[in-house]
């Protein structure tokens, strides 16, 4: 076997990718902060920053080990196997251990940590303006541990993970599931958790009656821009090398997102007569989410198709919460769950070699539907248990009076902007 040597170029790319994905979480803080009402901007941003702080710390303690450590039944890694990254960083010679691409393992740890962080932060949009900050921080730690790390293990710890390439499911069905950069682990996972929390935490006072418009659309667009920028690390970095595949993922990510913006704006224009900037920003995210699992498996042209569909579909989906009556405040379900499902399943049709439309038969489609369903069910159940346990113990909601006055003032003793009274 050829010895792996340090690949400086791929290492550079993975260092950059990790940095880009880390930036996504503050980007999300801005995106969500801008979408929330003026009296809860800071709390919204703090939910992202809080998730970042909590998950960042636990990832190096037990998160990596639960994701990639010795497998327990293909479901989760042993948290004690590489607790605190013991045995992860250095090889037996005391040199930095390398992965099969010649990239130091410690770089991979950083890269993977950023995925766990953003996934948890994404959920917060479903429960804006109304939850105790302490409950949120505890939820972040528990949910990452019981829901994210197992999902990451199942999909990415190959070949041990249940849903991984060459894993048990793939072997049984004879087809590898495709989830290039985390459609199941990140978006279906976060979107489904958001749905569960929205239902269990309950609605904001005034939901469905007051408009609750974004307090700052420039902040929303800035957030969307930083998310897009960071997503190049997310999808491009998921090639694990600085190579043509990374380039393909980069281009597919860009064009799918462009098409999704056009799709969303067109749907809005047709339905309401006006194309909004909130629509453009949301279209950005919808496109990015949809292309996440597919970025390495499509061509630029099929990526455009996927993006356009996802953009238009999410534009319609975000209105559902009013009809169905759950307060998914900032559209985590309408964007992440819906586009995550669309992207994951669309691979079954559009994948360049194995998709139904490209002569690959139905095998890919079936396996894609299965992994999507497993993710929905697994997350649904685990999140329900965690959320109900927290409801019974710490409680989720701040007092209604504090919610009306504004969570920024009542929970964080601050207001986002100071005017004349400063």
């Amino acid at each position: 076997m050829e010895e792996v040597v340090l690949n400086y170029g791929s290492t550079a790319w993975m260092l950059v990718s990790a940095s880009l994905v880390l930036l996504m979480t503050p980007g999300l803080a801005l995106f969500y902060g801008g979408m929330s009402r003026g009296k809860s901007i800071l709390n919204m941003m703090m939910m992202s920053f809080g998730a970042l702080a909590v998950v960042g710390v636990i990832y190096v303690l037990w998160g990596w080990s639960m994701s990639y450590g010795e497998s327990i039944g293909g479901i989760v890694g042993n948290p004690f196997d590489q607790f605190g990254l013991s045995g992860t960083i250095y090889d037996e010679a005391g040199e930095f251990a390398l992965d099969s691409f010649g990239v130091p393992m410690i770089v991979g740890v950083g890269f993977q940590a950023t995925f766990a962080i953003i996934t948890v932060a994404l959920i917060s949009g479903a429960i804006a303006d109304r939850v105790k900050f302490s409950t949120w921080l505890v939820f972040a730690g528990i949910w990452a541990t019981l829901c994210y790390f197992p999902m990451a293990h199942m999909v990415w710890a190959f070949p041990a993970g249940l849903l991984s390439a060459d894993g048990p499911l793939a072997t049984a069905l004879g087809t590898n599931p495709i989830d290039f950069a985390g459609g199941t682990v990140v978006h279906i996972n976060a979107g489904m958790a958001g749905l569960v929390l929205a239902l269990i935490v309950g609605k904001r006072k005034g939901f469905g009656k007051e408009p609750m418009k974004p307090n700052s659309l420039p902040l929303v667009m800035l957030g969307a821009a930083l998310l897009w920028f960071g997503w190049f690390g997310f999808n491009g970095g998921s090639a694990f090398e600085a190579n043509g595949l990374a380039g393909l993922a980069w281009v597919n990510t860009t064009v799918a997102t462009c098409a999704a913006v056009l799709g969303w704006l067109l749907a809005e224009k047709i339905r309401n007569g006006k194309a909004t900037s909130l629509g453009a920003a949301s279209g950005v995210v919808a496109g990015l989410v949809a292309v996440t699992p597919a970025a390495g498996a499509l061509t630029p042209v099929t990526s455009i198709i996927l993006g356009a569909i996802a953009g238009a579909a999410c534009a319609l989906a975000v209105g559902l919460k009013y009809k169905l009556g759950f307060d998914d405040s900032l559209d985590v379900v309408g964007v992440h769950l819906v586009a995550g499902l669309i992207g994951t399943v669309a691979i079954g049709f559009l994948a360049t070699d194995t998709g139904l439309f490209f002569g690959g038969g139905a095998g890919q489609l079936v396996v894609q539907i299965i992994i999507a369903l497993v993710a929905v069910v697994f997350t649904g159940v685990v999140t329900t248990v965690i959320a109900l346990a927290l409801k019974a113990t710490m409680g989720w909601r701040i007092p209604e009076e504090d919610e009306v006055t504004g969570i920024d003032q009542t929970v964080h003793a601050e207001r986002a902007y100071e005017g004349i009274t400063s």
Partner: protein
Amino acid sequence: MKLITAVIQPHKLDEVKAALEAAGVRGLTVSEASGYGRQKGHTEVYRGAEYTVDLVPKVRVEVLIEDEDATTLTGVVVNAAQTGKIGDGKVWVTAVEQVIRVRTGASGPDAL
């Protein structure tokens, strides 16, 4: 005609609006303000320093009404805005000599 001016807690705006509407008022004007009064005694610690908070955010509501509604409607406003805590605000009434609806140029009680 009269003008009722009410300086109230911002989170009471919705209730005051709803109460006035229920009482038959068909229009009002709102603006941001900040005020101090007895509420000011209160101190806050921020970043390791203690401050006397001076001005706290309020909302000013102005309603033009007919003379005979003054007592009823100030009562409506006071009831809706009351929490019983210091800082609930003030309501005051002044005489208005003339009111004109810009759209039509109509004046007097018809313009309300």
